[in-house]
């Protein structure tokens, strides 16, 4: 695979063919915020926080950098007025779910996002899918999945599988950008296995 030269924020960057704009930017120490991306997992394109402007043959468009492949002479701008506007609103939408998320609050400061712009939502989960995809792609167990669609979409542990596998794993917990995942697991555990004492079901936090 050949090398491709592109331009990111005015800087000439060389990247391997088949890699993404996000990977190329990171290799050149150019920061692009992400919420649903993790190097261990297939790119997902759900949070849209990594949106950037690309220009190719004179045409500009917004794309998500975690999915968009590098191409020769592509011009990438990671901070335009529109890009910042998109990121600010996405953060405000998600902070309504997880106002205490540490990574999101750090980004909110950068993009001027107000965490109380939208009223608090009942669910803490921002549906980044990191836990779902980690369990499916890395552990190949599919204990957690998405259920329902649209605004009703949520994550769910399958109690029978959770009882079998999660106790000795819990590797998805630290991936979660909110504090929701552990709580959801405890709840599943408590409902599915009411006879187990809580201390035993706890993970020591």
């Amino acid at each position, binding site marked *: 695979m050949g090398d491709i030269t592109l331009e990111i924020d005015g800087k000439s960057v060389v990247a391997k063919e088949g890699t993404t704009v996000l990977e190329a930017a990171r290799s050149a120490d150019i920061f692009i915020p992400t919420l649903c991306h993790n190097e261990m997992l297939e790119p997902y*394109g*759900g*949070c*849209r*926080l990594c*949106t950037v402007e690309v220009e190719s043959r004179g045409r500009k468009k*917004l794309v*998500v950098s975690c999915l968009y492949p590098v191409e020769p002479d592509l011009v990438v701008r990671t901070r335009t007025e*529109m890009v910042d*506007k*998109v990121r600010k*609103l*996405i953060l405000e*939408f*998600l902070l*309504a779910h997880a106002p205490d998320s540490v990574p999101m609050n750090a980004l909110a400061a950068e993009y001027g996002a107000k965490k109380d712009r*939208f*009223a608090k*939502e009942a669910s803490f989960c*921002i*549906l980044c*899918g990191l836990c779902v995809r980690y369990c499916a792609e890395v552990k190949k167990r599919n204990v957690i999945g*998405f259920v*329902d*669609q*649209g*605004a*009703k*979409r949520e994550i769910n542990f399958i109690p029978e599988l959770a009882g079998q596998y999660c106790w000795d794993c819990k590797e998805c917990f630290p991936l979660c950008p909110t504090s929701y995942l552990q709580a959801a697991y405890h709840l599943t555990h408590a409902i599915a296995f009411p006879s187990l004492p809580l201390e035993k079901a706890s993970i020591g936090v």
Partner: protein
Amino acid sequence: MGGSIPESLIDTPLDFDALKKVGAPMGAGALMVMDEDTDMVEMAKFFLTFLTNESCGKCVPCREGIRQLLKILADICDGKGKKGDIEVMEEIAEVMSAASLCSLGKTATDPLRGTLKYFREEYEANIH
């Protein structure tokens, strides 16, 4: 998802370019005729309610954008609209069109934009 135009534009030719120009893209090709008794804010809410059920919920702009738009529209329909509501809806619509993953999210706000363009006074009447 289509858009709406007022009576004054009724002679617009029924083709893609002409409709796009007046801000009412063809959508699925259906044509609805409404009279002056139709509440256009309710109309916009109706379309977005339909679309939130159609949305897969994977990407944030579409899932959360429609969620917040519906809350604002519900308030306006109840006569509880607040100053600034229209501007927030326009900002959400712009970001949804620019950053959603698929065409559903990118065009979900077409009906809203159309009514805001031609029937804005119906929104303003319920904002205090």
